[in-house]
């Protein structure tokens, strides 16, 4: 299991288009940007709906259940502050509610060798400081 205790993660700097995502995460809610015209979810947030070009976008809560779309195991600390966690799994999650929206995360509470494409995961929340909470993922508890 990767040791995250000594890792100082970069703090996200929201802008006005991404702030609702981080505000929701702080409340323990995973909310993604959704097109109010065609109902397409997208992540990361964008200026327009990349599906239908509409500009009426809003953040809506999603269930936080999904599957590992892709992953990598980091053995080389590109960012030195992550050196103490090596090797660790950085994963890309595709949510059941939001096909096509891809979220980066780490696989927590499991050995990094458990990261496999297609494995079921669920969201959890990791506070970074008083202002920011990171959505993260662990293996789904209801998966076999």
């Amino acid at each position: 299991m990767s040791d995250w205790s000594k890792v100082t993660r970069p703090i996200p700097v929201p802008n006005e288009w991404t702030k609702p995502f981080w505000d929701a995460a702080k409340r323990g809610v995973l909310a993604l940007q959704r097109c109010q015209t065609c109902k397409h979810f997208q992540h990361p947030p964008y200026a327009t709906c990349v599906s239908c070009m509409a500009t009426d976008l809003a953040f809506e809560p999603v269930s936080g259940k999904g599957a590992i779309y892709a992953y990598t195991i980091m053995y080389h600390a590109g960012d030195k502050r992550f050196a103490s966690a090596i090797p660790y799994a950085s994963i890309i999650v595709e949510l059941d509610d939001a096909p096509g929206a891809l979220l980066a995360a780490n696989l927590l509470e499991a050995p990094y060798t458990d990261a496999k494409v297609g494995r079921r995961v669920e969201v959890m929340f990791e506070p970074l400081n008083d202002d920011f909470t990171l959505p993260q993922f662990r293996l789904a508890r209801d998966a076999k």
Partner: protein
Amino acid sequence: MWEHRCKVAVSGVGFSKVTRSAEVPLAAHALEAVKGAVEDSGLAMADIDGLATYPELPATGHAVVDGVTIVSVNCMMTMLKLPNLSWHVQVETVNIGGAVQQAVNALLAGVCKYAVVWRAMHNPKGTYQNLPGTYAQGATQFTAPYGFGGPGQGMAVAYTRWLEKHGQSREKMATLAVTQRRHSHMNPHAYFCGQPLTREDYLSSRMVAYPFCLYDCDIPVQGAVAVVLTTADRARGLRPRPAYIAGYGQRLAFEVAGRIGSLSSYMEGGRSSSRLTWERSGFSPKDVDVAQIYDGFSASVIYGLESYGFCKEGEALDFIQDGRMELDGELPLNTFGGSLGTGRIHGLWHIIEGALQASGRAGERQVKDVNVSFVGASAPIVQGTTFIFVKEPY
């Protein structure tokens, strides 16, 4: 088919010394490569009237200093003081392949006669990637907090997707690394020329970002390469046999910044670019005699082979086995060693090799009976330009 096929050609090519990291200012490398290309053409420097480059510094977190860490068009103008200069451009979204394509367009438009395109790559001493500090701004706010740093990880996640979706094994990539290294031994300009690499070296090497081990990643170097392009009729009057440009394409899809790992986006980038090149040239993958496919990370070759149509999706790692990518194989691939063999100079070296193979000038590594020479000059989704060079205009 494209009405302008074979109306522009690559003539001379030039190379600088390639060193592991910066020993002299980058401008000295660029100048050496440009002088070499002009001399190879048999031209005088004063004949050059067009300049194009893509100067981006891929090492993040380092100061951009013109002449030291990049070599811009302005820097080249200052150095060369060309008396007949009539056109120049510095491209952004289409990478170095796009600079070559813009030079083709300028030559077709008649706004210059002899254009030089160069790519100069800096490798700072010390750490290559100085990743975001305490704060993750912009698109990195969704990736850097999770330890996603350099481009390697973005490529690596798509590769696990590919491997597990298709039930493939990364060990098969040893064939690519070992064969390209062997090809680089026939390229005196390559960084790894003369340094052997065995299958065992590959399989036992340290992991960087699984599934990428050390030998799946090109080594950062300091160096430059350059080409002279001119119209076909002028090229025929110069010293080297011309390599005619039969068609080119660029990727017509792009990924939302900060969205990483999407294998389908890689494939769409490659498909859209190569479709233009196949349609313009009138050729198809089965007509290709030799191919250079960008390999900054090894998996780019896999996405390239599949999205350009050389094999079916999920089959590229099998396609490169059994000698198929050797110089005498069915599709000789990255015959100059690729970036894995030359060091990280980006795609202009792939373009140069494509041209050399088409004009029969590749020396010891020349593939027999080449007419159609294909180039995928960068990772399909990143800036995926594609080209076909031919020996015989048609």
